């Protein structure tokens, strides 16, 4: 049941990807290069979506490298749920919240469709308390995400749950917002 749903979701994801890919490429390009930005300001009125798309068409050759980052790879498409790589947890909790179901189902579907693909689930915690105990807490979170993917049909050999504990904080500040940012599991593909 889950598997069928997953495959349907994957198909949806892929089709969504092909239709939004060009648009996303344009956004990357205009934002990323100053040369393009100057052109964009040349007679093109701000807020005109169509003209932005036009610029993208014109700049297809120039932005080939930017677009190539995720061209054909749904995992790199910002519009795809596969681009969502972080699962956040409440304080002292190991429960994967419902809001992450779409992203995890998309990752499961991708992994089911590509049996040679592997992911590492990297658990993290905030900095309070024992380093080794936090390592175990991060592992418990990574394990919760691993189980969620396993239930969705991903094989054991494709999954590894590991923990960084409090050792690799994304936000090094010593406040509640930073703690929340660091209570997290990251989904990292083996080929990335």
């Amino acid at each position, binding site marked *: 049941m889950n598997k069928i749903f997953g495959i349907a979701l994957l198909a949806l994801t892929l089709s969504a990807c092909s239709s939004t890919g060009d648009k996303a490429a344009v956004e990357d390009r205009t934002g990323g290069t100053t040369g393009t930005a100057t052109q964009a300001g040349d007679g093109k009125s701000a807020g005109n979506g169509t003209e932005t798309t036009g610029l993208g068409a014109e700049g297809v050759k120039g932005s080939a490298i930017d677009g190539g980052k995720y061209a054909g790879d749904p995992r790199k498409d910002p519009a795809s749920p596969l681009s969502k790589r972080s699962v956040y947890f409440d304080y002292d909790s190991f429960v994967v919240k419902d809001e992450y179901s779409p992203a995890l189902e998309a990752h499961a579907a991708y992994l089911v469709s590509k049996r040679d693909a592997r992911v*590492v689930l*990297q658990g993290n915690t905030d900095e*309070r*308390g*024992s*380093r*080794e*105990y936090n*390592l*175990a*807490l991060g*592992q*418990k979170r990574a*394990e919760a995400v691993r189980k969620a993917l396993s239930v969705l049909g991903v094989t054991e050999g494709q999954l*590894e*749950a*590991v*923990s*960084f*504990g409090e*050792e*690799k904080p994304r936000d090094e500040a*010593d406040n509640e917002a930073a703690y929340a940012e660091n209570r997290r599991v990251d989904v990292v593909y083996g080929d990335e």
Partner: protein
Amino acid sequence: MLRAVFLFPLFFLALLSAPFAARAAMEIEVVGGAANRIAIALLPFSSAQGQPAPALQQIVGDDLKRSGQFSLLETQGMAPPDLALVSIGDWRSKGAEAVVAGQVTALPGGRFEVKFRLLDAVKQTQLVGYSYTITAGQWRATAHQIADIIYEKLTGTRGAFASHIAYVQKQGKRYELKVADADGQNPRTVVRSGEPLISPAFSPDGASLVYVSFEDKKPVVYVQSLREGGRRKAAAFKGSNSAPAWAPDGRRLAVVLTRDQASQIYLINVDGSGLTRLTRGGNIDTEPVFSPDGQTVYFTSDRGGSPQIYRVAASGGEPKRLSFGGSYNVSPTLSPDGRYLAYIGRDGGRFRVVLQDLANGQTRVLTDSARDESPSFAPNSQSVLYATVQGGRGVLGTVSLDGKTRARLSEPGVDAREPDWGP
């Protein structure tokens, strides 16, 4: 003029010597009264030209003060007495129970002769006297040996000043695993990494360190020889590998693996063979540490709903809970004499070092800080080394078992953590 010429090289040497700079940052805080402290007069040693700084009696005095078991009589600015003619009676009348006098003589080839005498001020007799011939590089080690001899003679317990500590220093994104003297001086780097290093532990013979490195993009347990610097992976299974602890025989380790999903404690030979699982369950079991006789493993578990300290026979069986106060008790460590358990307890949001008497279960909070971690007993069981946070940086400290004497070992500008006190 002549005096200035001779002083200059001394001053220059002092500037070059890292221990001198770091020593200035040492802080010893005496919290309680001076009950039961042994009063000792540590007289200035006569000095030789070109001797390293600081003076031997300074290093010896800091060692004795840090232990919390001595009160040092004021001797600063006094002329060093002739070693054969120390007037014990004067010091007896000032309340001294013991007097230490010494002398340093320069020998050819940059060597020094160091002599000291420990005198009983009450009986007016010599308790012990020693003579050493040393190089400048053995200066601090000699001072720690003298402190050990004084400590053992006067307390009946062997000293631990000549022992070593290991810790991790973080600077930006660089991590260094260091080994230093027990007073935090003379640090030497044994591992450098761009990824985190945690949980170093000395082997029982002090010849190796086991630690956890994240250089393989996940925690892996390494064993490294301190002499040659060679190392190998002791546990690198699927999932996380962490929390290593040496069995007293030095041949086996307890480690925490997640190869069977939950963080569980396993026993493994140092060469990575002979893996057996010790704890069973779906909860967290971590931070194992062996009892000195090797028969029992103490560890942290959340099996009761919150992290608490448990113990289990090293041969397996049903674990027994040992900590009951509060909802967060972690990082157990055993005193080498087998009498005490120390761990980190959270109380009102503060993480502090707790000492528990294993005979009657009574507990005592030893520290007054808020972010204590990683406690570890001195080899003589008389004090606890721990990490804490001061001014936003990790520092190392020691505390006596009565909680009344605390010392900071590391400089405040350096981020030090994960200490272990070894042989």
